[in-house]
């Protein structure tokens, strides 16, 4: 009984609480922190959600030279090794989109974060485990973003 009620409550709450902006396959989030702080918060939050940051890649070599206002532009790659391994084994067609990643760049004193909504690849997938996993990845990315104020 109690568990049923908890389930109902969760269902209700999940429809009431707003999710991060989801538009055409992208998840966007604006942080009011500056770049270094938001970057730290992102990596901390990724870790707290049980994922490993595998690499932080710069894409901004030469950006300032060509007139950009910011050179603060990075891609953060992350994943859980067991999950990545399972998916690339059973669903190799997802490999080009693995591991998970977030783009983070500064806009004045604020910071923008962008990730793909992994559920859009459900159509490519033919097993339930991976479909559920894509949904969980999506929820986790939203949750990671929501912790970056």
């Amino acid at each position: 009984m109690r568990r049923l009620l908890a389930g109902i409550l969760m269902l209700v709450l999940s429809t009431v609480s707003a999710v991060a902006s989801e538009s055409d396959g992208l998840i966007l989030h604006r942080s009011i922190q500056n770049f270094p702080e938001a970057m730290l918060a992102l990596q901390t939050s990724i870790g707290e959600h049980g994922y490993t940051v595998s690499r932080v890649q710069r894409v901004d070599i030469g950006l300032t030279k060509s007139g950009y206002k910011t050179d603060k532009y990075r891609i953060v790659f992350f994943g859980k090794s067991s999950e990545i391994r399972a998916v690339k084994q059973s669903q190799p067609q997802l490999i080009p989109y693995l591991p998970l990643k977030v783009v983070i760049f500064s806009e004045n004193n604020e910071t923008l974060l962008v990730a793909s909504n992994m559920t859009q690849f459900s159509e490519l997938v033919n097993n339930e485990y991976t479909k559920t996993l894509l949904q969980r990845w999506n929820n986790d990315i939203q949750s990671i973003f929501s912790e970056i104020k």
Partner: protein
Amino acid sequence: MLSVLGIKVSVRSWLVPVLMLISVAVNAAPNGQLLYETNCASCHGGNGKGGVGVPISLPSFLHSVPDTYLEKTIRYGRPGRVMPPFKYLSDAQIKAIVGHLRNFAPGKYPESLHALVKGDIKRGKKLFGQHCASCHGVNGEGGKGTGVTFSRPRELPIIAPSISNPGFLLAATDHMIKSTLMNGRQGTPMQSFLKMGLTEKDIDDLVSYVRSFENVKAKKKFTEESAIMVFDSPNDLKTTVENLKNAAGAENFRIIRVQDLEEGLVKKGAESGREVVIYFCNFQTLNEVLGVDPRVGLFLPCRVTVVEREGKVQVMAINPRYLSAMYNNDELDKFCDQMFEIYTNIIEEATL
């Protein structure tokens, strides 16, 4: 017994107040500020001052448009101009967001007026070429880029929106377009064309011309693109990697990095060795494309992955054409097309 979500539940005394609480939470008016922050602030800024999106907090804007313009803009978005359609928001949620926008600049704003403006389209077209095309584009397609994006100094003017966009034309009444031209938008490059010396008749002709963009057929999009590209390689994994590096070099790309897909995720040395990722880049294109849409960095630098399964080797990549729909940005189509050709050339060359 009471049926909740199709499940029969026996009602205990304590359950009733709890259920009532839940239904209060569900029926409570949607929180406009929260909805704005989660759905709009990423592009328009928490204070509405603009970003990837145009500013939407200026009094000159908010005091000149009716609620219906804002509601329909949210519902339909701006197809191909970054602003997504918010299909899953309820009418009540959209109204709550509009309420929040109004708080940015409290004051009077017009009702929605539907009277049509009947001007001379031919004359309007000529005037448009003289007075508008320099900012809004010859066919009203909008300036390069959108809003006040990150890549440009903030002092630069707001990029003119597309006014031939189907989303804009659905949202805007003739009256709204006319009053925008009559009054301009103080604090933006959009001037009052009455003050610029045009007559009301000129402005009517312009309004009718802008309205006539509705009849222009939308260009074809890659709607049914697959998300990935896959090629078989006749060679082993190592040779395929070398071939790809050479082929990318021959297309003027610099190899940035070659790594195992699992690198950094598992202990050093424990990588499976069966998926090798090659990153390559052409800095000029990279800078250009980030200028068009800073969000594209998610798929940069360029990447192909060589995958070995039971002795069979394949080369995989994202399909760049798939991205242009994902980003709702027509300006990316050209780059996505270019990248599609380049990926195809490089991979074909390497898997001959």
